[in-house]
């Protein structure tokens, strides 16, 4: 029904609005001066600085505010796009497993371990332009797929909850990844724990040298189209959707559900595996994560916002990275901590996934639509009653 889809859109819009409002209130409270001045004056100052902070937060990624006027913020823009790249990819991976109602949340580990192993290839594989890059990415994807096959296999064959196994395996992946970097690939010359530098030929081409705008975004968008095609246009994607919609029905129709459960997790693992290495190949040029960067978790947020539709994943990812870059810029110009963005994310996710939120309003519009249809419909002939 139309009301249903329209309502989902409203709910996302209103959730974002409420989150921004809550963020504003927090910024307002944080800006409240503690100096000994009149209350109204304090209010005014707090308003002024909150407005200032929100100006940077909402527009900082695109506009550079100078005394002379506003200008396009090239660095902010490039940062925005670059930061969206890994989370588009993990968002796609998560949307695949979620479509099959498999709550494999191992994208973080697949991404991390994929990047760590592929780092070895990026350092030691002979430097041939393009070929090296492709080979590095394929390695990362293979590692991601291989690692994802563990919870996939345990679910398909042993009925072990993929939620638990994939979650625990994230730690395994993290420490294994660090172990590989520390033991085999560490750059002893560097002051911190980082890998040796990648071969120059393996790196992704840059669109902008100064701010290191790499072509990862095209990889991510290409991946989006590919995943969209697989999920929406192939028999494989159709099977994935059916097992997610009603597994018993899929089995009854003759679909081998264990096989599909395994396959979809492995395929999503391959996608997730490429998320981390893309950023390293494009931006950093070496493995430098001491902590897991959290792209896998972001993927869950994005898949949820995008309602598991691959085409909406880039939009959700760009939205998330936009408010993050904005928050960082706000943190640079004001004394508001950029971590405030975590509160906003939490509020948005909470409201978007809360089924009952605005349900009354939805019911009212459905009632209206249904009553309208009734009035337009043919009346039931009332028979003779004695």
């Amino acid at each position, binding site marked *: *029904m139309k*009301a249903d889809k329209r309502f989902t859109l409203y709910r996302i819009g209103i959730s974002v609005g409420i989150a921004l409002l809550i963020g504003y209130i927090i910024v307002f409270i944080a800006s409240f001066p503690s100096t000994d001045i009149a209350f109204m004056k304090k209010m005014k100052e707090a308003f002024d600085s909150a407005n200032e902070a929100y100006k940077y937060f909402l527009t900082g990624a695109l506009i550079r505010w100078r005394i002379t006027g506003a200008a396009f913020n090239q660095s902010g823009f490039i940062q925005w796009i670059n930061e969206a790249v890994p989370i588009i990819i993990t968002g796609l991976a998560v949307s695949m497993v979620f479509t099959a109602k498999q709550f494999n949340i191992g994208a973080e580990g697949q991404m991390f371990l994929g990047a760590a192993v592929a780092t070895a290839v990026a350092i030691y594989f002979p430097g041939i332009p393009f070929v090296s890059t492709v080979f590095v990415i394929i390695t990362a994807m293979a590692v991601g797929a291989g690692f994802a096959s563990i919870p996939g296999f345990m679910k398909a064959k042993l009925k072990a909850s993929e939620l638990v196994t994939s979650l625990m395996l994230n730690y395994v992946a993290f420490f294994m990844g660090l172990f590989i970097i520390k033991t085999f690939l560490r750059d002893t010359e560097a002051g911190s724990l980082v890998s040796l530098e990648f071969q120059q030929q393996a790196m992704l081409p840059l669109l902008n040298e100064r701010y290191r705008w790499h072509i990862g975004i095209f990889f991510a968008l290409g991946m989006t189209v590919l995943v969209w095609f697989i999920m929406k*246009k*192939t*028999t*494989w*994607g*159709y099977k994935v*959707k*059916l097992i997610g*919609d*009603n597994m*018993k*029905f*899929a*089995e*009854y*129709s*003759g*679909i*081998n559900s264990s096989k599909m459960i395994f396959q979809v997790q492995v395929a999503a693992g391959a996608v997730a595996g490429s998320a981390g290495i893309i950023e390293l190949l494009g931006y950093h040029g070496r493995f430098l994560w001491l902590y897991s960067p959290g792209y896998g978790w972001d993927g869950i947020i994005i898949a949820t916002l995008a309602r598991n539709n691959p085409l909406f994943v880039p939009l959700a990812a760009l939205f998330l990275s936009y408010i993050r870059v904005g928050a960082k810029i706000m943190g640079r110009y004001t004394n508001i901590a950029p971590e405030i963005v975590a509160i906003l994310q939490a509020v948005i996710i909470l409201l978007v996934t809360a089924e009952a939120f605005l*349900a009354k309003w*939805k*019911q009212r519009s*459905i*009632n209206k*639509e*249904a*009553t309208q*249809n*009734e009035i337009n419909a043919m009346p*039931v*002939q*009332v*028979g*003779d*009653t*004695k």
Partner: protein
Amino acid sequence: MAENCILEMNNIWKIYPNGVVANKDMNLKVNKGEIHALLGENGAGKSTLMKILFGIEQPTKGEIIYEGQKVDISSPNKAIEYGIGMVHQHFMLVPSLTVAENIILGMEPKKGLSINIDEAYRFVQEQSDLFGLPVPSKEKVKDISVGMKQRVEIIKTLVRGANLIILDEPTAVLTPQETVDLFKALKNLTEKGKTIIFITHKLNEVKEIADRITVTRRGKVVGTADVKDITEIEMSKMMVGRDVDIRIEKEPALTGEKLMEINDLEYTRADGVKSLKGLSFSVREGEILGVAGVEGNGQTELVQIITGIIPRESGQVILNQIELPLKTDPGFCRNAGLSHIPSDRMERGVAPDSTIAENIISDRFKKIPFSKKGVIKWKQVYGFGEDMIKEFDIRTDNAKTEIKMLSGGNIQKVVVAREFTAHSKITIADQPTRGIDIAAADFIRRRLVKERENNLAVLLVSADLTELLEVADRIIVLYKGEIVAHFKHVKQINETVLGEYMLGIKRMTSEEMGDL
């Protein structure tokens, strides 16, 4: 008349979150001490109206006046407080507890911290004597018959102080003999001043037991009448809105070779009950074999084994000369030429968030023209979906509608559209018309007969005896996992005869049964 009125439901509207309008301005008046039948087809809104009365659903609009006062029934607990009880179609009993334990659940007589079990038995005995409803209070619920379970449910509502009892299609699960007992018990209760609302779609029952009826159709009340003033034909006209002829004309069966053979089939459930004890029979081309039996006598297991959903313990299943492997695989059965209309369409028959067309191609999406080289041809899929909507008269806008937006009858039509167009030689129809409107049920029955005329084999499992007698060519009766009767000439028997075998009162010898 007015002071005699125990319940009034005025201008009740109910719109579900998915936009389905179940009740459109419905009015109901029930007098004290009467048996009031709520008559209507499935989907007419009678169950929803009763769920509102019992506090399971909240009305979108409308008021309820009970014993002269406007009441707000926000939950079943509230309803019980007011003295309204309900016996559901699916019993809400704990199988592993005794009858008495089930009855006192939530209102246990205490002795210190533990339950005073002797007092419980005494109390249950006293109550069952009082209402003239004898129950075996020390037996476990899992060991008693369906009719007895229903009686336990009725006592449960009575001991909680119910003055108005709602019975939701109470006879749907009963054999003819059990129905007679139930009706006696109900008459007895009204003599003790209880009021009964009786939901049904069976006209003969209304005539037999009810004092007054309210007829509903498509979410509206068509009218209320005294039963003695109205004939069954008039009732059916009110219910359906037109004259109905549900007799299906068919030629005697011309049977050919065996398409399905079952040999010595055995199965033991997880709880240790042996639900199939060496079953053997066959279905030939051009015939419909009916399977009768009280629910839970092995029908479910039989169907699930033949369709590859659960593994058999021992024995043989041969479909189209291909023996089923021991490993379960519904896809294998489909490839062997089997179609399956499952008993619970929502559990296994459809994917609710997918579209009509997506549901119809679920068994053939790999074939041309629906896909080529692994890529789905959505245009062909939706074109086919539109064709099916026309051919099977599915009431909807288009094939892109999601299943969850359809009514039960239309969902069932989606299921049969898929199963009847699969070009299989054998069709297993498990309760194919349960819970759907008369027109859709009639349509499906006629399609089953058509299958048979096209020289295909049909196995029809149904709790609806009228349907079995109407559609099947031969009937076997299952009782506790065994075939206890076989009727080669369905035209010569009636529901009562079937009932005696279904209850295990009678049993045929193997000579009487003849060649199965």
